């Protein structure tokens, strides 16, 4: 890396991962921060007085949602078009992330922002618009590509990034991934939450569930394949706390997105030469929040093995920052002459 360079030009490099549910930043001054992708503005003058702030982010925004207009502006990974408040929310969110990296006043910043793979040109432009106010120079890349770059998986590998709104697939073969090397499907973390919500509402009609509640159950106990132990939660039923077993529901919901993932992976790999296929199969990496699901690498390995023979599947070590770390690495490796043009 280039600490000398950095000191010389006094540039702060940052990598940003703009996610549906969580966004993170990694900076060359060694800060790493993450925030849930919620932005809230006080509903009225009184709420603003009570909260003592003009704008709230992340879990703080979610916690005060009754007195706020809350936006999750990157739903489906793109700035929802035509909704001005959403564009503003993205802008504020990025400003907030950059402030978390604590740049000194007047600091020159070069940023690389990772966005979901299927973001179209127009959205990348709007993301540029949102970021440019804060940085000196900027590039936008696809999120799974940033993850791959960060892991030095430049060639012969496949990234499966399981996020909230989308699962993004990306095959790396030594060049910038082309259109057909990337694919996005929409049954991801949010879909699991919806499934779990309906299973639980069905099984325990006496208890009221919310999507936020079931997401928390999932994030605490997610698994696929064999359950290590029973998963139980305590919930009020007619005023009394009752223990509910939710093991099977968690399993069913978490596994519900896997057939599409398996199918998509297999069909993407199948397009390559057999010799190359072997290499990719031995470098399948699962990233994103969904990669924290217990047993997911083993489950996928088992299914892939049946479909196309032996392979190696692993999960990234730090799903929260794999994307922003990759973007940061990309930013720091990027020749200076390129930055100057953008």
């Amino acid at each position, binding site marked *: 890396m280039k600490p000398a360079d950095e000191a010389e030009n006094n540039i702060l490099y940052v990598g940003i991962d703009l996610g549906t549910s969580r966004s993170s930043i990694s900076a060359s001054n060694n800060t790493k921060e993450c925030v849930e992708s919620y932005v809230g503005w006080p509903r009225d003058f009184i709420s603003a007085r009570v909260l003592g702030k003009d704008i709230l982010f992340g879990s703080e925004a979610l916690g005060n949602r009754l007195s706020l207009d809350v936006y999750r502006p990157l*739903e*489906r990974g793109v700035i929802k078009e035509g909704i001005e408040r959403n564009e503003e929310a993205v802008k504020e969110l990025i400003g907030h992330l950059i402030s978390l990296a604590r740049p000194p006043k007047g600091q020159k910043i070069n940023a690389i922002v990772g966005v979901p793979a*299927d973001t*179209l*040109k127009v959205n*990348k*432009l709007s993301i*540029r618009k949102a970021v440019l106010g804060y940085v000196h120079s*900027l*590039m*936008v*890349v696809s999120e799974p590509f940033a993850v791959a*770059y960060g*892991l*030095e*998986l*430049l*060639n*012969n*590998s496949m990234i499966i990034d399981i996020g909230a709104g989308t699962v993004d697939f990306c095959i790396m073969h*030594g*060049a*910038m991934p*082309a*259109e*057909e090397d990337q*694919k*996005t499907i*929409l049954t991801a973390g949010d*879909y699991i939450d*919806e499934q779990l919500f*309906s*299973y639980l*509402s*069905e099984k325990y*009609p006496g208890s009221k569930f919310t999507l936020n509640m079931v997401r928390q159950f999932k994030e605490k106990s997610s698994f696929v394949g064999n359950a290590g132990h029973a998963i139980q939660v305590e919930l009020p039923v007619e005023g009394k706390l009752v223990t509910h077993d939710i093991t099977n529901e968690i399993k069913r919901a978490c596994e519900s997105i896997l*057939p*599409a993932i398996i*199918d*998509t992976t*297999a*069909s993407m790999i199948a397009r390559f030469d057999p010799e190359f296929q072997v290499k990719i199969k031995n*470098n399948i*990496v699962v990233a994103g929040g969904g990669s924290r699901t217990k047993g997911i690498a083993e489950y996928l390995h088992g299914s892939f093995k049946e479909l196309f023979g032996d392979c190696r599947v*692993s999960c990234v070590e730090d799903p929260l920052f794999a994307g922003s770390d990759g973007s940061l690495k*990309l930013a720091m*490796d*990027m*020749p200076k002459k*390129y930055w100057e*043009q*953008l």
Partner: protein
Amino acid sequence: MAIFSKKRGSRPRRIILKSVYEENLRILGKNPLGPRWKFPYLFKGYFFLSFIVLLVLGNVDYLDSRLFSENKKEIHISTQGENFVPAEYISLINDKKISMKQMFGLGVKTIVIDPGHGGSDPGTSGKLGLKEKDITLDIARRLKKKLLAYGQYKVLLTREDDETVPLNRRTEIAARSKADVFISIHVNYVPSKPINIIETYYFGPSADGDTLELASAENAHSNYSLGEFKEMIEKIGDTLKLQESRRLASFIQDSLYLNIKGQNSSVLDYGIKRAPFVVLLGIDMPGVLTEVSCISNKKEELKLYTTRYREDIAQYLESGILNYLKKGEPVYEASR
């Protein structure tokens, strides 16, 4: 996990860094390295790309109006295309086919068209980014315009725009309008096979695994609880509504399949099937759900980008519905 040592990786790394930079120039509309056609794989002007690829594949039949008119052999009732003729005149033009009953409005039929998905629910989407919700709405609007031109039908859409409408709200719209026919338009996705299939469903229990999977995808945004849903399935027998739905399904399927086969002989006929689609369950009139195309097939997606192809599909649907309504009066009357 690194499979390239720094040294061995330096060349691909340089190439990658350069291509990231170039793509970002392109996002800005700048053009670093001469003409774009040298780098088509990075170029994201999908509409342009689709045009080029269609040309390259030699698949230009959609531009050829002679072929196009030949493909319409299944369509019995003439339509107006872009030259919109006021409804009153159309009914006179087509007068041989209009009974007295219809002339005096007694037989006015209400057709509800349901463009699948919408708003926060995009449905499925293709590799180039085309979304199911946008195709279904566009085809539905075209179909509505075509049907209205006869001056004999009341036509409603369950959504007029890119908006989120829960499935039970859609069936409510159908019920309140006392519709005679309900048709829900969708686009299929078959991930592992590069094929184009056409299939039409009517409501009923199904044991077929693939069908159930499709049904659960299409039902994903329903506001019914699972309990309500099961109860409703059990209540259904082989009623008149079911028989009429089956008849409607077969007219639509035939029209779609035979016409599309005229354009592309590799299309597969998956026929008509029963499936527990929530949107068909809640309605009290003959209703079908039709998967008019298969967006996982890239060639098919490119065609869907063209107005001509979407217009064609609307026309085939129109022909199917009219064949159903005219060939033998439906025996079923919704209990209202």
